[in-house]
Each structure stands twice: as structure tokens, then as C-alpha cells.
């Protein structure tokens, strides 16, 4: 597969992630969407790392950091969801409409 192929693939993955973020009701599913977006970015980096960059360590470290940050992010977000669930008894994105205007 060529670089363009990988890029297209990652773009599609990113878009799928975006769609999940925008359309899913369950906040966990939304989080999954975000993960997909980050993975798309990782895939991008790795593709460039393979085809466009002379020193392949950079990309790998980049992706490694992304994975690490994703873990941290998920941890925090999940705890926030838990926190939310404690009072609201829901994690439906569409029911979070108390703050508006």
C-alpha cells in the first residue's frame, strides 16, 4: 500500500472517529470515537515514518507518546464520567443539556 493509501485510510478512520464523537449518545462510545481519531493520527505518523522520513525513531516515539497520552486521557475522562454518573445517573450525551444559553 502506498503512502496515499495509508493517508486515505487514516483520514477515513479519523472521519469515522469524528462521526462517532458527533453521533453517539453514550459518552463512552464518544470516547471511543476520540480514540479512533488518535489512532488515525498514529497511523498517519507511522505511514510518514515509513515513506517520508529518514530517521524512523522519531515517528515511533511520537506514536509511543500518543499511546501513553491516550491512556492518561482515557483514565481521566472515565473518572469524570464516573463522577458524572454519580449524580446524574446517566452518561447520555444528549441528556447533558443543563448548561445552555
Amino acid at each position, binding site marked *: 500500500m502506498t503512502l496515499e493509501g495509508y493517508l486515505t485510510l487514516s483520514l477515513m478512520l479519523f472521519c469515522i472517529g469524528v462521526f462517532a464523537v458527533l453521533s453517539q449518545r453514550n459518552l463512552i462510545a464518544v470516547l471511543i470515537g476520540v480514540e479512533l481519531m488518535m489512532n488515525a493520527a498514529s497511523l498517519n505518523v507511522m505511514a510518514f515514518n515509513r515513506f517520508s522520513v529518514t530517521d524512523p525513531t522519531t*515517528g515511533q516515539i511520537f506514536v509511543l507518546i500518543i499511546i501513553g497520552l491516550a491512556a492518561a486521557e482515557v483514565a481521566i475522562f472515565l473518572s469524570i464520567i464516573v463522577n*458524572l454518573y454519580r*449524580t446524574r445517573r446517566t452518561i447520555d450525551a444528549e441528556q*447533558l443539556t443543563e*448548561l445552555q*444559553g
Partner: protein
Amino acid sequence: MSDIALFLPETVCLLGALVLFCAQVFGARYGVVWGLALLSGVAAVVASVWTWPLAGEPFFPGVYRVDFFSQFVKAIIAGGFLFVAAISGRPQTVRSDAWAEMPMFLLLATTGMMMLTSAMELVTLYISMELAAYPIYIAVALHRSRSIGGESSTKYMLQGMVASAITLYGLSFLFGLSGSTYLGTISSQLGTLATQPLFWLVVLLVLAGFLFKLAAFPFHFWAPDTYQTAPHEVVTFVATASKVAAIAVLCRVVALVAPAGVDAAMASRVLMWMSVAAMTLGNLAALRQGDLKRLLGYSAVAHAGYVLIGIQTMTGAGLTAALFYALGYAAMSALCFLVVVEIGRDEDLVSIESLAGLHQRAPLLAATLLIGLFGLIGLPPTVGFIGKWFLFSAAIEQGQFVFVLVAAINSAVALYYYLLVIRQAYFAEGTSDEPIHTGVVTLAVAGGTTGFVIAMGVVPGWFWARSVEAVAALMG
């Protein structure tokens, strides 16, 4: 040794965070924690200012740059932290079991912001951004009332994650287009990169995360919600230090691509439209608000628009103006939030109505609020006026007459809601005459910041010269 010196402010912050961590682990009283936080804040400021004359690249060349720009901004950020620490003597709206941790998180965020201003490498930039963001996500969630903090923290973090994912996606392209993660290398290839439309989109994608921090359209939706419902002290931090860091990094990125000249015009145009949208939406939506913090949130959106005026010019003058304004803006909004903290001690939400009778209950706070709001309106003798003057001037220099006109009309519209707040504080009769007792430290900070806001407005020369110097370091 020199590396340590260059990295001193961040080190101080990290050490402070460590000390606070230990204190918290050993179950120190909040008074002690607060003292330590103040101490760390002072140390961070001192360290940042001390490093002003230094310049260099600690760690590996090209990763991290210490120059006057970064150190100047770090001093402001540290100042922001110090301010927040100073008014956090009794952070009632923070969940009581998290009092001890709160300063630590904010200090970590401060570290992240400091790194953000120096980062010259994409991965460092990204991770600094996240380091600056996560503690704030956490802090926002630590509201004493879960029902109030829950929704906004969820939304805030969700939007932040999306923005940072977009940034990340952009960074990946930047990496691919240039074959390097070093900003230095990227800028050396600017000549070829700038001809590619994708490059400009990528720059925009990269900016997403920072625009999010700045609460610029269309990444501003979190601002009113979070401002309204996060603990007062945390919002203060978000509104001051965080904004400065975002502006600094925007300056950094724009300074990077500015030499592209004509090719940058389209990106500049996009930023201009963002600016127009941000200030218009922010000001309009703020017109009819009942919650003081929410109103300030929208005002922050509008101010993001003003700052973008300077940034979108992509000239030295514009960036200088943006930086100058960032400094002033931090101080001005700090003043407003100081009052919010004081009067909202026992309230989760601070309505504008609750300001009634403030001039009787606490004349000094009322005056503080007045000066802060005058600044936000953009009235002399505060820095708000001259800051806008510089921003507008930079844009006019680029021939953007109509744009500046729109911005100026916007600030006239904004007058309405700020004045309503002033009206409430100075005119409306409150239900209680009970004086509000304000701590000595808070009063001192209020006085100092007020003085700062006015000093910057009346004798802007020194501050302007520093900003010029900083931007020169940035562009040079």
C-alpha cells in the same frame, strides 16, 4: 548547570508540585499547603524573571528554546499561578477532600504551560499541551457539588480531547510534510511547504488545540459552561495563565509561518474571520446573561477574538500587541475573578444579582471589579484601552480598516453587558448590608493587580518595550 538554569522555572514548578504532593501525602493542614503553594508561586515568578537575560537550548539542540519571549511569558504564567494561589486561601467551591491536591494540579498545569512556550519540537509541544490541559480537566471536575461540576467538566474535557485530536492529526501531517518534528527544521523548509495548501490547513489543525485553550471560535463552546460551573479559583487560572500560554504558543506558531509572506494571506484571512466570529458571538451572547461567571466566559470568547486581531496580522507589531494584550488581559480578568471568588465564597454559582450592594458591603472589591471591567471594556486609564489600541493599530497597518471597525463596534456593544455588571455592583441595593470580609493577602493582591492594570495603561512604555523585545526574540 546551565541547562538547569535555563530550565529553572519549570524545575521550580515541578519541585513545588513534588513538595505539595508530599505535603498532601503526609496530610498537612490546608493552611500549610496554601503557604507552600504561595511559596512555589513566588519562587516560580522569581525564577522566571531571573532567567530573563538567559537564552539557550537545554537538553538537545532544537527541542527546547529558552529566550526572552519564553521567559517573559513564563513569568506571566507564573504570576497567574501566584495570583490564583493567593486568592485560594479558602477555596470553598473546591471539593473539600481535594483542597490539598488542587494547588499541585495547578502547578503541574503551570509547568505544562511553561514548557509550551519553549517547546520547539512537535512531540514536546503536544505533550506540553496535554500536561497543561489534564490538570485543568481534573481541577474543573473537582467542584464541591458533583451535580454542578459533572456536566461542564465532561463537556470541557470532551471538547478538549477532540481539539487535541485534531491538533494531533495536524501534527502528524506536519511531520509528514517536513520529515521532521523540529520546528527549526520545518521553518527552514517553509519556502517549499508554504506553496502547498495542505500545509496551511495543517497549520490551522495544529492551532486547533491552542485556539481551544484560548476559547476562540469555533472552539469556544466550553468557555461559558466551564467558566460558570468550575470552582472559582480554577476558572481564575483558566482565564489568566492558560490564556496567556495559549496566546504565546499561537504567537510561536504564527511567527513560524509568518515569513511565508503572501502565501500566509489565506491563513491570515481564516484567522481574521475566526476573530470576527469570536468577538461577535462572544459579545452578542454575553448581552443577556444572568450569571456573572458565564458572562465572563463569553467575554473571554470575545477577547479571544480581539487577541486574534493581533495574531492574524502575522507581523511583529501584531504579535507584540497580542502579547501585550495577553499580559493585560490576564491581569484584568484576574481582577474580575478575584471579586467572583470573594463574593462567591458560599455560592456555587455567582449571579450578577448577587453583586447588589457590593459598593456598600465591600467598597474595595467594588472598585476592583470596576477597574477590571473598565479594562475589559477597553477604557482608559486601564491597560484594556492601550492594549486594544496596539491591536487595532497593528491591523490598521495591514489596511484592515473594516475589520477594525467591526472590532471597535463590537467593543461598543460589549459595553452594554459590562455596564450592567457595574450597575449591579454600584447602583443596585442589596438585600444585606453585611460587610464582606476579605483577607489581607487577597486585598494586597487586589491592590497590586489593580495597580498593575492601571500602570500598564498609564505607563505602557516599559511593558511595550518588553513585549517588543520578546517578539523580537521570537521572530529572530
